[in-house]
């Protein structure tokens, strides 16, 4: 049987919540935390560093679960900018839509967005895995360095602009590819990876219907002839 701690943000401040999650929770035996009345508040459950299940019951603001390590955070609603930014490990699940820069600079862990994600989803990605069940906006995966981003719906303009070693998979239409991004054949190993990742994310989609996008690596080195390409 698990121990549950509940926080009502109409009565408790964000600072008190986070201080509890950082200082009192580890080693306390509590393994589930339910946060009610988030009402668009920012910086909820940021900087976590222990294994715990956290449920945010409602819509939340910017930087939810920022820099997360180990914790599994689920938001039963929509989120503002930069959910799971710079996360290191654990899982962050958004049951609604996400605003801009979801998963920015994430280094590890899994970010799942059941709805759509706005522009710059997966920007500067550094090893994390992002699965979006819906669409993503323009300039998603901009300068993404490592990791995987799966978009089951459509991708906006300039997908993967200035990509490094991150790999993107898109199930729907791609408005346009950004500088140095190119479509590559979907290999059997990609399909296996996708099946596993979609299964882990709990998102249903046919892994064989995705398109793979990766860097053509033509801009890795200084090239004065590339003009405005970078």
């Amino acid at each position, binding site marked *: 049987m698990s121990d549950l701690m509940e926080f009502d943000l109409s009565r408790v401040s964000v600072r008190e919540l986070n201080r509890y999650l950082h200082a009192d929770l580890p080693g306390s035996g509590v393994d589930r935390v339910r946060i009610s009345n988030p009402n668009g508040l920012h*910086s909820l459950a940021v900087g976590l560093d222990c294994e715990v299940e956290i449920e945010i019951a409602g819509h939340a603001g910017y930087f939810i679960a920022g820099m997360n390590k180990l914790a599994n955070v689920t938001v039963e609603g929509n989120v503002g900018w*930069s959910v799971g930014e*710079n996360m290191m490990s654990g899982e962050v699940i958004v049951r609604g839509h996400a605003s801009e820069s979801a998963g920015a600079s994430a280094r590890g862990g899994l970010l799942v967005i059941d709805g759509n994600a706005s522009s710059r989803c997966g920007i*500067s990605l550094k090893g994390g895995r992002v699965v979006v069940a819906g669409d993503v906006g323009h300039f998603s995966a901009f300068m993404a360095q490592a990791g995987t981003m799966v978009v089951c719906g459509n991708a906006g303009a300039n997908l993967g602009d200035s990509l490094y070693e991150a790999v993107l998979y898109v199930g729907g239409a791609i408005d346009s590819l950004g500088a140095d991004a190119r479509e590559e054949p979907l290999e059997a190993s990609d399909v296996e990876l996708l099946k596993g990742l979609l299964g882990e994310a709990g998102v249903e989609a046919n892994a064989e219907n995705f398109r793979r996008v990766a860097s053509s690596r033509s801009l*890795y080195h200084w090239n004065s002839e590339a003009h405005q390409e970078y």
Partner: protein
Amino acid sequence: MNDRSPDDRQLPGPPSDLAGGPEPQEPSASFDSDVMAYIRRATQCGLYDIRGMGAKRRLPTFDDLVFLTASASRYPLEGYREQCSSRTVLGARFASRPIELDIPITIAGMSFGSLSASAKDALGRAASAMGTSTTTGDGGMTPEERESSKTLVYQCLPSRYGFNPDDLRAADAIEIVLGQGAKPGGGGMLLGQKVSSRVAGMRTLPEGIDQRSACRHPDWTGPDDLAIKIEELREITDWEKPIYVKMGATRVVDDVKLAVKAGADVVVIDGMQGGTAATQQVFIEHTGIPTLAALPLAVEALEEMDMVEDVGLIISGGIRTGADVAKALALGADAVSIGQAALIALGCNNRCYHDAAEGWVDVEDDYRQLGATPGCCHHCHTGLCPVGITTQDQHLEQRLHPETAAGWVRNYLQVVNMEVTTLARACGKSDVHHLEREDLAALTIEAAAMARVPLAGTSWVPGR
């Protein structure tokens, strides 16, 4: 009587196109030899100049100010006997653990990657010995610099290379970098020859690529978002650590006000003389405003917001001497940051490096191979630093011995701080932070206008 017609006065001679023309042979002021060399170079390689260090053009500087030390109307302190405090506290606005330093001179952010591990280590040791702080850079925190730096400021940069919550928690303060004086509005650059396996690993990049990092943060845009970002970093670190916001000096009044409104504990303004490990020369010489002009604008912004006592102000960009530091404090800074001067103290541009076994070793030939000479080198971007400071080459790096170099930097910092306290005592101050604008006069009209102090010998402040 002169009865010659105009035609008679015309003497026979060769056509002017063969004679070379009658014009005097003067070089053009607009197209001087430097400009012509720039154009010729562009025609040959099709790529703009990239280099390290800061602006080299002549600019109004703190040298254009002098102190009005005590005489009959002011009472000096005994220069060699009475105490003059240089203790400096930064970040007390919101942070529960402000930074406390023994001297008002901090080491500016310089990355492992642009600098060798030995150089970072040496700076950390020297700063710790003098009771001041060092700062990480675009590439994250190395265990060595955390170990050697008693007080370490952790930069949060647009690239987020190496940025992680463990290091954030291990830091003593956090500096959100919006820009730097050498390239305000531009992103970082580390050419492939410096992207070693360790540097690449820390930055999650392929080894050997030309790393050009972002100039905008990936997870927020604009001052309203900056306020939320600062709040997030405070929440992650339980409101313990001071948060600095660093900006290149451009629209200083507006930028400082926005940073303060966003919740900064400390604002860092980096003037156009600020250095870099590598960027386009056109950036270094043609963007931003001089440090001397930037500082009074930052103070004005804080005064207008009634935040002088609450928000710390650090000025950087070409700070070299105790006189520079004292003048910066008199104009309203709480502290300064030094970068290039610290590198020179490490031995940058020295003709020799010091080897424990061989003594001083002449490396002038190594400078020549870079197309440079000792004293004029700005080839940090090449990674071939002859004295082992701005390199990732494991052989070159060994030319800088951290313990020896730390001693040089420590001595330099000590001299600078002694000069500051000496000047402060002569102005009758028992604390270097009591130096004030009234203690200064300007030697040039430009400096008087920028620093907003009277032109020497007058009570005239241009524009006032």
